[in-house]
């Protein structure tokens, strides 16, 4: 191998390692696509169910309980997290790399602090918060802090993921500003639509934008 080819090979090694060490896509395009579809599916199911029961028993304000609504979305979250873990594991197997890579540890260290408050709010919601139909508050916190968690990865995440985080954060802030107008509508219509719009539609748009991205899943 002549010196030029060796130099090119070494530059390739440097580039690959730098990307691997400095760029980490916490959410792959596949996870975003499946997560988006699950979120839209759940939103449609809840909406159709409410509509169906509203025709049969119009005197009842709501048919899916407040805690039932939150439990359904937590179930969807569990499925998406399991799928994301599977995609990351599969990629790690293909690359002969550890499942919990240094980049993943770095991402978790950045993301986890942003998830403590929404986790605490969710626990409060299941104990007491559900009594006052606080779904809208819960949903705003989920959306806003999820956005913050994505933004917290900005030092090593691709720009697309940070933009997704900003879209979530701005939506949550907008929902906070428009609290009075949104609370006028019956629950769970607005929280359900907000979840479908953000976790469904935003993720699908993100998946479409990064589908052909060269950055690898999970362990980048």
């Amino acid at each position: 191998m002549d010196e030029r080819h060796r130099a090119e090979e070494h530059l390739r090694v440097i580039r690959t390692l730098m990307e691997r060490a400095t760029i980490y896509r916490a959410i792959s395009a596949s996870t975003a696509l499946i997560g988006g579809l699950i979120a839209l599916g759940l939103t449609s199911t809840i909406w159709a169910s409410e509509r169906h029961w509203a025709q049969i028993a119009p005197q009842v304000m709501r048919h899916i309980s407040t805690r039932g609504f939150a439990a359904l979305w937590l179930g969807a979250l569990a499925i998406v997290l399991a799928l994301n873990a599977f995609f990351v594991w599969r990629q790690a197997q293909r690359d002969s790399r550890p499942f919990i890579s240094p980049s993943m540890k770095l991402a978790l260290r950045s993301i986890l602090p942003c998830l403590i408050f929404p986790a605490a709010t969710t626990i409060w919601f299941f104990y007491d918060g559900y009594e006052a139909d606080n779904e809208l508050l819960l949903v705003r916190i989920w959306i806003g802090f999820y956005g913050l968690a994505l933004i917290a990865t900005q030092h090593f995440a691709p720009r697309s993921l940070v933009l997704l985080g900003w879209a979530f954060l701005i939506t949550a802030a907008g929902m906070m500003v428009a609290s009075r107008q949104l609370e006028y509508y019956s629950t769970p219509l607005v929280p359900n639509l907000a979840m479908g719009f953000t976790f469904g539609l935003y993720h699908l748009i993100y998946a479409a934008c990064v589908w052909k991205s060269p950055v690898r899943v999970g362990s980048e």
Partner: protein
Amino acid sequence: MLDFDKLDKAIHEKGRLSIMTLLATRMAWSFQDLKAELNMSDGNLITHLRTLHKLGLVAMTKEIRDRPQTSYALTAKGRVAFQEYLRVLEQIVKAGRK
């Protein structure tokens, strides 16, 4: 005319180049993280790190938290040497395309 001798021979070895590249991306790397990222054996990695350390390109810090942990970082000399190495590599590639 390019002088290939300008290439730092300590860095111009694939294993050590990989170590220097990773160290250039963050403030410090633990031994375990370097090992996981580079998929190298303990012996191989420690040999390369010792070589770079002896040349003053890499600094080593030993800490005892729950268990002893050694972390590595580029020294100022190491950072300059890595940048210079990259500059020479790019020149070689450009010269070869002419």
